[in-house]
């Protein structure tokens, strides 16, 4: 699965640690999400969508 996390984070000038704090996960998890090494659970995907104020499908796309 592809995602736009890094771009969305860059637009808000957030660090990985800052985004991790907002999502309640570790910085390593944010890094793994951004590099495509980890696909989030549905609850985390919803949380990401809420944090960025966008629908899930605008953030995550299929390969």
């Amino acid at each position, binding site marked *: 699965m592809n995602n736009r996390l890094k771009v969305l984070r*860059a637009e808000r000038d957030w*660090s990985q640690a800052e985004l991790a704090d907002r999502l309640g*996960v570790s*910085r390593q998890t944010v890094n793994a999400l951004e590099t495509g090494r*980890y696909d989030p659970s549905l609850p985390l995907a919803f949380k990401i969508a809420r944090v960025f104020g966008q629908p899930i499908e605008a953030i995550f796309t299929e390969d």
Partner: protein
Amino acid sequence: MTEDRPLPLPLRIAGMALLAAAGAVTGGLVARFVDAGGLPPDDALNLFIAVVLVAMAVVSGVVLTLRPSRSPKGCGVLQVVAMALAGIMLMIPLYATRWVSSELAFALVLALLAVQTVANLMLWRRADEMLRRIMVETGGLAFWTLQLALFLYAAGERLGLTGGVTAWGMIGVLMAVYLVASAVVAARRGIK
């Protein structure tokens, strides 16, 4: 954007040199105080795993102090405690009877095991979803590998082709497989 860049190259090289020096000191100390060549293979394996675990706990403690955001909040300390206790518990059956009775040594193992179990449960509860996934996948990979190995060994033993591995030796093998499995699973998620 406030980017989380990797550490500058000189700092990374210094870190690697520090780790290499720590490894050399650890190896030197073990070689100085332990006659590993005179140990039975199962004792040698467990001693090796114990030293690796304690060394990893020390290094993780240092990393945790320098870069606390690498682990979910509250998890880093618990990981260090669980690793250190695992190493110490493997050393107790090897050396504790020099100073205390076997019964007291076993009681100490039980007490530490209880503390480690609580630490592991707390770690599970505090972990974020990726860390939990890593723990689950590590358990699955280790179980699958060990199940295959145990089946082959058991079949060979029943056929009179193998034998002689003690439960103490088996726990050494189990810990070794678990360590490798956890490294593989973590690396797949980009955790070094």
